[in-house]
C-alpha cells in the first residue's frame, strides 16, 4: 500500500514535493473514478419474474407513487430511486400504506459519487411481511441538501447526523443537526473522496518538561 501511495503522490502532489502550503503532509485522494453501475450479473441485478409478494408490492408502489422508479433485485430487495423533492412523500407513503408498512429503518447513509453528487441510501424493512426495500436519492455536490426523514422514522436522527458529520450532507428540517463523531470545530468532511487531512504534526511529550510546565 505504501508504494502505491508514493506513486500516487508523485503523480498528483504539487511540484514542490509532498508538503502543502502550511508545511503539512498532503494526502492525495486515492481513487477518482466512479464505480461502473450496471454490469456483470450480481445479487444486485434486476430480477425479471418476481415472486408473488414482491410483485404485489411493486404493483402497490407503482399505483400509489406514479412516476417513481421501482424494481425488484435478484437478492429480493426492492429498490426505489426518487428525487429529493419527493423524498418525504415517498417515505411517508411507504410507512403508512396498509399493505406495505415499512416501519423499520435499518440504516441511512451516504455515498460520495464524485461528479454525480452524493447518494443518500436508506434500507427499510417491514417487520410483519419482512419485505425489504432500498430507497435512494441523489443530491448535487455543490448544494448537498436533502429533506430529513426524522419525521417519518425517528430512528433516522443519528444516522443523518452521522452522514452530515462525515459527508457534509445537510438534512433540512432535522431537529438537531450537529456533528456527532468528530469534534465540534472540525474542518471538512472526511468521508468525501477529496478530503485532505490538514492537522499539524505533534511532538513527543517528555515528562520533565511537563512537570516543569505545571
Amino acid at each position, binding site marked *: 500500500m505504501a508504494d502505491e501511495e508514493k506513486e500516487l503522490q508523485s503523480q498528483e502532489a504539487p511540484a514542490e514535493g509532498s508538503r502543502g502550503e502550511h508545511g503539512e503532509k498532503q494526502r492525495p485522494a486515492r481513487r477518482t473514478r466512479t464505480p461502473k453501475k450496471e454490469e456483470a450479473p450480481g445479487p444486485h441485478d434486476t430480477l425479471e419474474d418476481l415472486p408473488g409478494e414482491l410483485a404485489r408490492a411493486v404493483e402497490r408502489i407503482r399505483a400509489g407513487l406514479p412516476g417513481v422508479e421501482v424494481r425488484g433485485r435478484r437478492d429480493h430487495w426492492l429498490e426505489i430511486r426518487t428525487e429529493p423533492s419527493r423524498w418525504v412523500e415517498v417515505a411517508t407513503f411507504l410507512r403508512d400504506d396498509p399493505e406495505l408498512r415499512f416501519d423499520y429503518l435499518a440504516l441511512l447513509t451516504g455515498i460520495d459519487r464524485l461528479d454525480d453528487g452524493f447518494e443518500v441510501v436508506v434500507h427499510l424493512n417491514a417487520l410483519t411481511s419482512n419485505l425489504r426495500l432500498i430507497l435512494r436519492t441523489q443530491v448535487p455536490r455543490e448544494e448537498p441538501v436533502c429533506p430529513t426523514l426524522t419525521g417519518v422514522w425517528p430512528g433516522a436522527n443519528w444516522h443523518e447526523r452521522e452522514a452530515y458529520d462525515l459527508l457534509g450532507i445537510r438534512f433540512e428540517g432535522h431537529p438537531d443537526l450537529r456533528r456527532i463523531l*468528530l*469534534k465540534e470545530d*472540525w474542518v471538512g468532511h*472526511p468521508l468525501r473522496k477529496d*478530503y485532505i*487531512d490538514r*492537522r499539524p504534526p*505533534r*511532538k*513527543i*511529550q*517528555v*515528562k*520533565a*518538561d*511537563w*512537570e*516543569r510546565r*505545571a
Partner: protein
Amino acid sequence: MGVNPVVHSGDPEINAAGHPGVLTTSLRKVLNWSRKASLWYMTFGIACCAIEMMATGASRYDFDRFGMIFRASPRQSDLMIVSGTVNEKLAERIVNLYDQMAEPRYVIAMGACATNGGPYHGLYNVVNGVHEIIPVDVYVPGCPPRPEALLHGVLQLHEKILNEGLPVRA
C-alpha cells in the same frame, strides 16, 4: 506542583543535591518501595485493550497481588493505563485527566494504538500514540496485549520507580 522535577544522577546512591547520604538514600528506598507497592490505577477503559485490562484485574490474573486496585477518580490514582486508541476528541480529555492526577504519576501506554496509533496509524482522527499528548513511562506492545504482557509492563514500571531519585525543593 511546587516540587521540582526528579533529578536523576548517574549513581543512584547520590542524592539530588549531589551528596551521598545515609538518610536520603534510605528514605528514597522506602518511599520508592511504598510507591511501587500501591500503584492505584484509574478505571479508564477506552477500547479493546480495556477488556484485557479488565481481564487482568479479574480473578484469573489478579492485579491485587501488586497492591493495584482501581480508583474511579483521577485525583486518587497514581497510574493511568491508556488502553486504546486516542483520537482528537478524546485527546483533550486525557490531558485534562492527567493534569488532575497527583504527582508522582505514571502512564502505561497499553497496546499498539496507544503506543503509536497501531493499526490506525496516520488516519485523519487518530493521535499517533498517546506520547504526543502526555508523557509515557512504559509501552506495552500487542493488539491487544495479553494480560501477562500488561503484568510485565507493570513490573517494568516497578523497576523504574525503584530507581527514581528523591524530589527536592527548589
